[in-house]
């Protein structure tokens, strides 16, 4: 069985785990919306003291960009150094996996008073994640304060290779300025 290093930095929490099948070999997290830089290596060092790993799965968001990129850059470079595979998955799906309701919506903070969100029916995401003001997100019960479950994260299928940004960078070309 493969020992998977699971990493998610898409929320204000930095989460790291080592998952071996149904067994959680290591699980740790540190809170802090601007602390992913120091938190992630510290947690991975703790994890590696307990077990080696042979695969990496990382949450590709959506989530605040700076923290999100720390996790992705780290995961890709760690996998390169170890010559092991790395795979990206949707972080919202790893949050939704903890909710046992028939129809619900997961939201996470997107800064600028907006939220990233997706709707789930019978445990399956309906459509792509989106970013909106909270007032514009409705239609099912909302879960707003959950963090990704890393046991669920490593079980998600597929491989997302680009960060899920959902917004373009803010910038106005000089030619378009008033």
């Amino acid at each position, binding site marked *: 069985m493969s020992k998977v290093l699971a990493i998610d930095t898409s929320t204000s929490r930095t989460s790291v785990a080592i998952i071996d099948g149904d067994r959680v070999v290591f699980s740790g997290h540190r809170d802090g919306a601007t602390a992913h*830089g120091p938190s992630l290596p510290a947690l991975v060092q703790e994890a590696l003291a307990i077990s080696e790993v042979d695969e990496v799965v990382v949450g590709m968001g959506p989530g605040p960009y700076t923290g999100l990129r720390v996790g992705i850059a780290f995961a890709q470079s760690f996998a390169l150094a170890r010559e092991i595979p790395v795979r990206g998955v949707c972080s919202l799906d790893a949050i939704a996996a903890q909710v046992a309701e028939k129809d619900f919506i997961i939201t996470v903070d997107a800064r600028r008073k907006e939220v990233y969100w997706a709707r789930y029916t019978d445990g399956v995401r309906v459509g792509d994640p989106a970013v909106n003001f909270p007032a514009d997100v409705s239609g099912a019960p909302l879960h707003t304060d959950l963090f990704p479950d890393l046991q669920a994260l490593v079980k998600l299928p597929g491989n997302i290779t680009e960060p899920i940004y959902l917004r373009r960078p803010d910038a106005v070309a000089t030619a378009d300025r008033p």
Partner: protein
Amino acid sequence: MSEPIVLGIETSCDETAVGIVRGRTLLANVIASSVEEHARFGGVVPEIASRAHLEAMIPTLHQALKDSKLSLKDIDAVAVTGGPGLVGALLVGVGSAAGLALGLNKPIYAVNHLAAHVSVDSLTHTNPLDPTIALLVSGGHSSLLQVEDITGSITKLGETMDDAAGEAFDKIARVMKLGFPGGPAIDSLSHEGSSTAIDFPRGLTTSNDWQIRPFDFSFSGLKTAVARYLEATPDYKKGDVAASFQEAIVDVLLLKSVAACKQTGINSLVIAGGVAANSRLRAVAQERCDKAGIQLRVPSPGLCTDNGAMVAALGSLMVSAGRTPSPVAFDADSSLPVTTISL
């Protein structure tokens, strides 16, 4: 480990750069720049730069390893720019470097971007770098430094009170519609004009300034003077403005650099940072240093602008000097002072 192999990562602004050195020998220096994506905005857009860093990081690492004919297993230490710079941009490099260091089980050195600019001269000139005076001039910084020990002791003698020298180049280039970045455009245009055509002001060079802030710079007055000249002279000669503006900057940078050497009794000057690639600065620096008996050291133009080799170079010097590596959990510092050489 007499000749450590160090991989350096630089992502503090808009270049995703990886360099590899063995001791003081350059093995690879790969730079992926997002500058073209920023040009239409007239400056670096942090979010665009950060996205480009993440996209370019792994391919740039692969290319550097290929160029050096090494594999990651050969690397003895990882170095990374820990600051100063754009925090979102820095953190891509920091995340990647931490992943490599933990993946390889090797030490990590989080170093100062500005000190790294100075240290890169160790790849070009083999004699000891320090002690030296260093003029650090780029788009974000203009400082005069006294470098007693590049791995342990740097004192700031002075810095710009307003714009950085490179920023002044960018702003004047924008007014003259020469595009971004402005340095290379003004440098090449200056060859078509006269450096003595217009007498633009030299900031902070009155006798009173020499008393109270001898090693500080100011370029905002120069910028205003050029803008006023352009307004008042609709048929101005672009070459003359470029050459005369450039001369004013070069003149004041070197007046103060030579004065710093004389005051400290250190007969060595390193010029580093992107503006050190300016051909007029390099030429006048050589003339004035020769006359004053100062040994001038300027890295090759390709090593003056932001690059990964300079980060690897400083990392290598830190390893050789027996400096303690950074802790595994360090935080990038967007305003890291030049006096803090490593985190």
